[in-house]
């Protein structure tokens, strides 16, 4: 089995029905597994954080980002995806 390659997805905007379903569908379509998910409020904005494994993803990192951004557009939220390593560097010694 391939080693996991983790990325962090942050969804920001107004909460609405179908948000989790919409993002999850894009991830499933790309063979991306959700490892962890949580929700919080950042400066009065809803935000959802997903930790995902992209090691089995069939497309490039950029293509997956694009698909997520498009889904975010239709849901009226901003979707960011960043490779896990930036969080390791900033928050772990």
């Amino acid at each position: 089995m391939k080693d996991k390659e983790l990325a962090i997805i942050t969804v920001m905007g107004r909460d609405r029905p179908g948000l989790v379903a919409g993002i999850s569908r894009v991830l499933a379509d790309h063979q991306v597994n959700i490892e962890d998910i949580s929700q919080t409020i950042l400066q009065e904005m809803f935000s959802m954080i997903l930790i995902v494994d992209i090691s089995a993803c069939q497309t490039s990192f950029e293509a997956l980002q694009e698909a997520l951004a498009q889904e975010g557009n239709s849901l009226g939220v901003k979707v960011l995806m960043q490779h896990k390593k930036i969080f390791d560097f900033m928050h772990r010694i």
Partner: protein
Amino acid sequence: MLYSKEEILETIKMINLENLDIRTITLGISLLDCIDADPQNAVAKVKEKIQRTASGLLPSARHLERKYGIPIVNLRISLTPLSAIIAAPVRGMNQAEALTFCDDFAGELDRACQEMGVDLVGGYSALVHIGLTFAEEVLIHSLPAVLSSTSALCASIQVATTVSGINMDAVRTMGEIVKQISERTEKGSGCARLVVLCNAPENIPFMAGAFHGFGNPETVINIGISGPGVIKSALQSQRGLPLQDLAQEIKRRAFKITRVGELIGREMAEALHTRLGAVDLSLAPTFKVGDSVAEILEAMGIEKVGAPGSTAALALLTNAVKMGGAMATSAVGGYSGAFIPVSEDVGMVAAAASGALSLEKLEAMTSVCSVGLDMVAIPGDTTAETIAGLIADEMAIGVMNNKATGARLIPVPGARAGERVEFGGLFGSTVVMPVNPFSSRDFIRRGGTFPPPIHSIRN
């Protein structure tokens, strides 16, 4: 969760709300293997090497931007000081022929780099702190023509070191050259691409001072980070906090900012099959609210930069940034302080416009940060000797305090103190600062060498 929500959102906030970015990825390239006595061959070799070596810079940077969600503002190249490369081709030429060759060479370089998507290229440089070779003299005298006919090429001239003292003949010449460049370029803007340096590090990622020093390997990646907004927002909510705790907060933030530089530097070096040379810890401002070093000092409790206490506040900031940053990278280099370029920092411009910040106070502040009188617009009628006097003062601060300093002064033709001037892009917009009207002409005209300080003799 692998990380706490707070940690993830802190990163997101720094990038999206506090303007954290990588200011520059600068690829250093040695041109020593391009030296050729035939002028045409020399130019062709240099172009070929740059095109071959730097072809991966733009695509790799765009990929890293996407992968980590961090903006990379500028891509730059720094070259072996060009005076060393033109020495062989200009040998045997008279001065006029040599100047024409320099102009053509610089134009070719400028175009080649811009075609590759590089924003700025540094290394039109000479190290003349002891004296000048023929090639160095030619390069310096080519600056007015070269900087008025190019747009990406940056020049730096080192005229002083702590070990050798100050070459005051070169300082006097640079006063005249700055004046000539200003007269040949719109609003004197060509002067924004020239810095006169003391104790120049060989691995600066920032312009105009970046060059690929002789101690470097074939190629190297140097990183310039940004992040004044990240520090400022940390301090804003800390009113009344004692200074040691404030310093602690700055260190914590500086550490995180620098880690991003370290990550991008390592990955870029890997992508280009080279090594990470240096991460410059300096907090580089950009010309927008929330990305200003002056605003940090104001968040610390200084009403306007220039007020009494400004030098102390800046010293505290610089020191804390170094302490936090040095822990975050294995490759500290470049200037590694805090920048206070006037035209590139909205808070500095506002302070100068309101009269809070004088040139004299700015000079005092440069003794505790990097890199000197930087991006300072001065009246167009400032004499060459007065410009040389300002340069000499800044060089003396560097020489006596064993630190890197620089002078990037922009006499704006026709402009008087208090007038607004717009340079555009990263070079920003500023107000013309008044210069002390009394003269140092006779001091400057003495020329010769300013002897090195006694503490330079350390063996």
